[in-house]
């Protein structure tokens, strides 16, 4: 805990430096990682090409990695993606604006609410509409619940990747409860379709707030349980500390966002940097760590879960009766303009770039998926580690292939 000190502006790696310096720094950092972080073996083993996935239990979907290994040491990793490509961006173009929302559920399918939110926010920005305050607060609550559930899935699965099977069950126990809240609110557990352009489809049901308050009050003790299983565990530390170290500057150069960036010491969170909805009124901390290894990413995510619980509590206190759906025309025909809006999804910056041509369908709707961009850094992270670490690293950047392949 001693290294959780406040980070100054310069340490954030945000000091002005030239592009050339940054790029060379990032590239040389990537180069300077020795091919082997481990001492050479006695025998000169021939290289072998290992096909990792797409049907591999810890690639979190259908990621395929072509890994060149020397014994177990990774020399090169080549991600091969696209097994789950469904042409979502093409689908958006053929449908009216409201009809696009269910498709966003299927991008990052463990965090559907944040996808809905980013999509609606983009279209609202294009239309220039404000949504009612109650809708804003409920959206924030849904976002943070979704962040909790996404991080819980991450915690469980990355635990299993490293051989700790039990945290998975505990994490999923809590996640099921969160999904129950979603089910009660919008009728679905996973593919929520829980936001509409201009607000929300429904108001909260009676008793939802009380039950959620009870759950959120109980949550920190549950998180303590996971932490007791993992945080201090020597095997967990051995598997994660100094595995896949990446600096904040490198993260920025690779376009990596989200908890990975924050674990590398850059205190950048869109909820704070460019507050949307009512995040600017809320009091929450942005957990950061400085080492940028797998363990720090774990700590940052666990701390983020605690902060999410805090945000939800504040929102529940602020909640007042009122409208949940703003004044939006039934047929949405924005100006022939273009707009980009992004939110902090559990994985990083999730953005939608929408080009309208004045009709009721988007002319072009592009998704800026955090998983896709973050996955780019995997070969850099995996270089020089062992096959076992590759599993930890895939887990730690927290990809969802539905979002990578779209």
């Amino acid at each position, binding site marked *: 805990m001693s290294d959780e000190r406040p980070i100054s502006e310069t340490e954030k790696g945000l000091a002005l430096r030239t592009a050339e310096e*940054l*790029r060379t720094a990032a590239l040389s950092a990537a180069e300077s990682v020795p091919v082997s972080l481990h001492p050479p073996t006695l025998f000169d083993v021939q290289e072998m090409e290992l096909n990792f996935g797409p049907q591999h239990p810890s690639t979190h979907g259908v990621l395929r990695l072509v890994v060149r290994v020397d014994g177990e040491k990774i020399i090169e990793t080549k991600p091969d993606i696209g097994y789950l490509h469904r042409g979502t961006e093409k689908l958006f173009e053929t449908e009216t604006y409201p009809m696009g929302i269910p498709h966003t559920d299927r991008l990052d399918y463990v965090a559907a609410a944040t996808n809905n939110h980013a999509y609606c926010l983009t279209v609202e920005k294009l239309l220039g509409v404000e949504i009612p305050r109650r809708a804003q607060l409920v959206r924030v609550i849904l976002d943070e619940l979704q962040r909790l559930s996404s991080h819980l899935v991450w915690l469980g699965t990355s635990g299993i990747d490293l051989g700790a099977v039990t945290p998975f069950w505990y994490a999923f126990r809590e996640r099921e409860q969160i999904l129950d809240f979603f089910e009660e609110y919008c009728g679905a557990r996973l593919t929520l379709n829980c936001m509409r352009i201009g607000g929300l489809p429904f108001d909260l049901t009676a008793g939802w707030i009380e039950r959620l308050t009870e759950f959120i009050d109980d949550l920190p003790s549950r998180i303590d349980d996971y932490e007791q299983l993992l945080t201090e565990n020597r095997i967990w530390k051995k598997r994660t500390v100094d595995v896949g170290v990446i600096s904040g500057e490198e993260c920025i*150069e690779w376009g990596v966002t989200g908890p990975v960036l924050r674990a590398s010491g850059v205190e950048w969170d869109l909820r704070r940097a460019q507050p949307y909805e009512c995040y600017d009124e809320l009091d929450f901390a942005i957990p950061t760590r400085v080492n940028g290894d797998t363990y720090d990413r774990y700590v940052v995510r666990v701390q983020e879960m605690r902060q999410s619980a805090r945000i939800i509590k504040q929102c529940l206190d602020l909640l007042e009766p009122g409208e949940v759906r703003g004044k939006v025309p039934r047929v949405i025909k924005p100006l022939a303009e273009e707009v980009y809006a992004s939110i902090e999804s559990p994985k990083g910056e999730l953005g939608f770039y929408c080009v309208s041509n004045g009709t009721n369908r988007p002319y072009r709707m592009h998704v800026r998926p955090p998983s896709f961009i973050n996955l780019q850094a995997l070969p850099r992270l995996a270089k020089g580690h062992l096959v076992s670490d590759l599993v930890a690293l895939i887990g730690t950047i927290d990809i969802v292939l539905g979002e990578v392949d779209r």
Partner: protein
Amino acid sequence: MADDETTRRPDADAGAAPPAAAPAAGGPAHKPPPPKKVEATDASAHPWVAGIRAAFPDAVVSAKEFAKQVTVVVARERIAEVARHLKDREDFRYCVDVTAVDWRDRQPRFDVVYHFYSFSKNDRIRVKCAVGEADEVPSISEVFLAANWSERETWDMFGIRFAGHPDLRRILTWDGFNGFPLRKDFPLEGIDTGAAVYPEEWPEGGGPSPDDPNAKVVS
């Protein structure tokens, strides 16, 4: 973007803004905007745009601002230099995204769209360039490592070549796929690559027989 409504210069249009290359870019030349409606304004005098113009006098084609987002249309040949300028001089260090828009009937046909983010300004800039079907765009993956996959995706989906890209292969579709799915002339229901057999089209237990002229080898 960093400036809010009041500090914006809506009609400080000093430079000769050439006509927008894109139908969306610039928007129709409206009169002073009505109070409530959000309209695009010309942003040629925006400091970032002015900075680009100062560095590369022939690069900026047009600039506009909509919903507090600055869009600069630059010449295709200059895009890598502009990106480097933005990163070096303006501190846009984080390349958010690279994508493209297909304006089917326009010449040149495509817009390649870049988003950059500056941590110190806490703001984004959108840079666009118009690209014809046969043109090559200078790759910015030399400037931003992050643009590597995004450019590959743009090549995969639109067939826009990026000159100087280290590894310009298809990324979401498979190698050897024929066609560029996000072009407007690519059918929504896809093309028959022979890779899948749909039950609606083939009888139960059927599928193309070996001597069927429609049968194709899975690529």
